[in-house]
């Protein structure tokens, strides 16, 4: 194993003729530069060039890609969009939460102009959504729930009790029997017990 060597952002590591760029690096003008501050790792392949990568922690941070299904928690709603915290990417939990936005026109696939955000999500709901855009530097991830399998999974009623879904747009509280509107996610057949 190579001895531990640290590098900073922008440090020139080697030329592209000696190695190929791995994660945490980028190539410019025929050289490999580091894009993270961390430990330099060099993996030797048998037939091809060794792969040079820079890692920050022992496990790499999993970033949501476009098209990934994420689990998030709604933190605030507005008449135009809902702001969420992304907690899980697929089934792996994130160490630090990312922020996402679900716009009003991305909540449903049909009848987009009749959608009311208040009747689809409420703060503290757990929602399954899909990433449609990474956004630019200042904005959050843009998410969408415009599919049958996406939407609210867990929600609490005004009485504080976890609600039971009764249709794709309503959930009912078992204690007060009041119905509330949500955009409910359809349970996928492989998770249903019969």
């Amino acid at each position, binding site marked *: 194993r190579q001895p531990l060597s640290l590098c900073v952002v922008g440090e020139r590591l080697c030329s592209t003729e000696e190695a190929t760029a791995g994660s945490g690096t980028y190539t410019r003008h025929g050289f490999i530069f580091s894009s993270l501050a961390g430990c330099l790792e060099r993996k030797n392949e048998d037939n091809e060039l060794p792969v040079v990568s820079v890692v920050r922690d022992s496990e790499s941070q999993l970033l949501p890609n476009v098209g990934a299904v994420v689990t998030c928690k709604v933190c*605030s*709603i*507005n*008449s135009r969009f809902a702001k969420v915290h992304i907690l899980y990417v697929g089934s792996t939990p994130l160490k630090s939460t990312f922020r996402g936005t679900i716009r009003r026109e991305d909540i449903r696939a049909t009848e987009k102009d009749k959608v009311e*955000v*208040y009747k689809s999500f*409420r*703060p503290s709901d757990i929602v399954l959504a899909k990433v449609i855009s990474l956004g630019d530097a200042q904005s959050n991830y843009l998410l969408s729930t415009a599919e049958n399998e996406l939407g609210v999974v867990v929600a609490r009623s005004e*009485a504080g009790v976890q609600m*039971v879904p*009764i249709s794709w747009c309503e959930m*009912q509280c*078992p*204690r*007060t*029997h*009041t119905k509330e509107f949500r955009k409910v996610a359809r349970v996928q057949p492989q998770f249903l017990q019969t």
Partner: protein
Amino acid sequence: GTAAEALVGQVVLPGDLLLLPGHYDEDAESERLRLSAGATPQGRLLCGPGLRRSGAGLLVTKCGLLRHRPAGGGAYWVDSQQKRYVPVKGDHVIGIVTAKAGDVFRLDVGGSEPASLSYLAFEGATKRNRPNVQVGDLIYGQFVVANKDMEPEMVCIDSSGKSSGMGIIGQDGFLFKVSLGLIRKLLAPKCEIIQELSQLYPFELVLGMNGRIWVKAKTIQQTLIIVNILEACEYMTAEQRKQALAKLSGN
């Protein structure tokens, strides 16, 4: 819990569980939902403000007097005194303009958040014909969106596009604040207080459900007299009020 009928007309506190007839022995923990839309055994009982249904009984969420109306299947509710207003959809309120932000006015309605009012939400307002609203103006409007998760939104037109009395309240006059219970009393049909006052002097009156009242009479002195009477009506009995008005009309 105790039976609901035994506590009608008495003070109830938040957390009290009221049992409905026919369910005295039922365990309040059985929370199974039935999928069929069958009627509950005791008929359609209305659960009013201050109460929430919990299992087999009603859970009190506000302190006050328990009231009951047997008509139409029965209704229970809690009469409580409150000064702090919570925005409710459909309520007509008086708001004070605090800021103009782009196409939207910010109004203070006495709730936890300022309400927003679009400049297009007035009768006859178009993008070219904007209403003449300045910071500090009084607006009488109703809520279209009012819940605990979003900021409240107001409009000054009703569902058919007519203003029906809503809009900017004119110059002069006097705005003051009373408790919400007094406003409900004044808004009841054929309110005695308003009838007696109108025999004293002619005046204009706007009542907002957020506890705000705007009065305008011919002179400042008359306006202030009406303001003082309305504020004192909170604690005066009917006789005391009649005596006070008799003294004033005698002068």
